[in-house]
């Protein structure tokens, strides 16, 4: 059996990639949801997939998760092909889906135990493990509550706790904090960061740039099923944006008329309906140049370039299209 030989080989495979994807394609009808993407994820790494809605992030996650079969390309998770070894691949993973699919008819703690049973784990392990993870998810008080009674943030934390029942080394998170309030997001980030510290490999999709900057060591920006850029958040900002951004507001009507007068300041200029962005390594100097030309913006703001600038540049301004 290949499985038995693998079980001996896997521990020594540690330095090899946890996930290898080569030209992976997923087609629905004649639509390529994922159109030939390639990447590697190393053990212990936090790897992000960024992209607008419909970019193919969730489809990619479902293929990695050994649930959805790919149309073409090579994919290996822990050295296993998910299309042939679905149960084996899924046994390695913890999965946090985009939409919570907890069993609302069961109590909070039972949700964890029932899920752990799917991995063939004995109750002698599952009971203390469920208690441990309830504490990790700050839900100990809610152990006997019905899932219905939980807030959105609590459900999300319970879903994460559930994904950890099998003690996975690799965690897939599909938009883990979408729809949560800031407090709930920060609690979740803290929990995820702790998992990362404990050596768990995190693979997450998000369209929150701050989340990607907080959690990801490395990320790919995906749009229309293709990879637009790859690198660490800092490297992507260096590569695709300037160090600083100067934001000027002249009032909705005037932004477009003033823009031509700003030519030559900074490296790049972008006119949005509500503001003008000047990409420059020194934002203050750029602002000085603007006032030297006799232009008086209503407000001005110099900020550091963020992943959001990279993202919007690579995937297009959603405000405009």
């Amino acid at each position: 059996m290949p499985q038995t030989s693998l079980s001996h080989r896997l521990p020594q495979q540690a330095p090899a990639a946890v996930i290898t994807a080569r030209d992976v394609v997923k087609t629905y009808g004649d639509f390529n949801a994922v159109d030939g993407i390639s990447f590697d994820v190393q053990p212990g790494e936090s790897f992000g997939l960024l992209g607008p809605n419909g970019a193919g992030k969730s489809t990619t996650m479902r293929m990695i998760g050994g649930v959805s079969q790919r149309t073409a390309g090579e994919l290996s998770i822990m050295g296993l092909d998910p299309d042939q070894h679905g149960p084996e691949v899924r046994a390695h993973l913890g999965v946090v889906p985009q939409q919570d699919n907890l069993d609302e008819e069961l109590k909070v703690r039972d949700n964890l135990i029932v899920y752990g049973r799917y991995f063939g784990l004995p109750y002698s392990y599952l009971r203390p493990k469920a208690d441990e993870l309830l504490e990790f998810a700050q839900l100990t008080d809610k152990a006997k509550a019905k899932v219905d009674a939980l807030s959105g943030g609590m459900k999300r934390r319970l879903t994460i706790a559930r994904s950890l029942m099998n003690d996975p080394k690799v965690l897939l998170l599909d938009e883990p904090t979408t729809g949560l309030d800031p407090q709930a997001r920060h609690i979740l980030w803290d929990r995820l960061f702790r998992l990362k510290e404990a050596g768990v490999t995190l693979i997450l999709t998000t369209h929150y740039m701050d989340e990607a900057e907080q959690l990801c060591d490395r990320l790919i920006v995906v749009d229309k099923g293709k990879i637009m850029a790859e690198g660490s958040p800092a490297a992507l900002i260096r590569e695709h944006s300037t160090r600083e951004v100067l934001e000027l507001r002249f009032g909705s009507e005037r932004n477009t008329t003033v823009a031509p007068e700003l030519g030559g300041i900074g490296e790049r200029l972008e006119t949005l309906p509500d503001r003008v962005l000047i990409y420059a390594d020194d934002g203050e100097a750029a602002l000085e140049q603007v006032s030297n030309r006799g232009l008086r913006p209503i407000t001005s703001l110099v900020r550091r370039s963020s992943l959001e600038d990279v993202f919007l540049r690579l995937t297009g301004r959603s405000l405009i299209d």
Partner: protein
Amino acid sequence: MTEQQPSQVPGGQEAEAASHASAEPAAGPAQAPEPDAAAAAGSVDARVPAQLTLREVDALTRPVTGLRSPLTPLQSAERARNFGSFYYMEHWLRQLRGYGWTVLMTAVGTPLVYLFAMGVGLATLVDANTDVSLDAGNGQAVPYLVFVAPALLATAAIMVASEENTYSVMSGFKWRKTYYGPNASPLQSQQLVNGHSMGVLARLLLTTGLYFLCLVLFGAVVEPTGWVMIFTAALAGMSFGLPLMAYSAGIEEDRGQFALVQRFIVMPLFLFSGTFFPLDAMPLLVRWIGWVSPLWHSTELGRVLSYGYAEPLWLTALHVAYLAVLCVVGWIFARRVYIRRLGK
């Protein structure tokens, strides 16, 4: 954490750390975040400067995922391949426990209501009317209650099956998406079909078992072979439920299909399957409803078992075969639909 800084850890957390340690598999120190990082305990503590608050120390040193799984992922996968259907059945039965009271009340209440209505009410009328002859097939007439009892039993099974294979299937795929949780685990789609069906079978047997006891109490069973009806009625439930499950699993949008199933399939089956009067009493035009109906086949089987209704042996065999074929065909289609839909 227990050795390096016991004085810093409040009593409650110390006790808790100890309980974690005792529940831990023997290998490795309890607080090691990684089993292979035997030195982790030391290195974690080395990171803790003295000025941190107790809460921070606790946060830094507490194992995030302390308890190690006793199985490797490949062992887990192997167990799931072998026993996954049973794991899902466990889940299903736990869900059932959530509305266990309703299940029991339905299982006991339904027969009581029907038996009073039929056995005490309608039967008095029918049995007093000498024009109506309910022939047992051997020249002897049977009381109306005895005649109708196997049909009521099989009907109860079909009602339960239609309840469990419509809305709850739709809920798994669409409303609550509860199928997508196990779908991400080592379980396989077809194991959800199996586990669900085994759970339904358990509920059916509970229902028909209790129903049978009520029948006995009302004196509606004559022959000692009557108890076998518990299984033939459950078989009727499965033979109706499995194809219905396949149908429900294929529905993408709820446009009231289940209400239609109830009104235009379940109800006519209930009325025209030789339930309240022999199928022969019906014109040929509607008699086919009985022939295709699992309810009729199960009812006829029940009559053979319950009061020795005389019919050719080949017909009895046909009843069993028909019900079994419906089960198998329904199961094959349900598997196919689940695999296709969950693997998208």
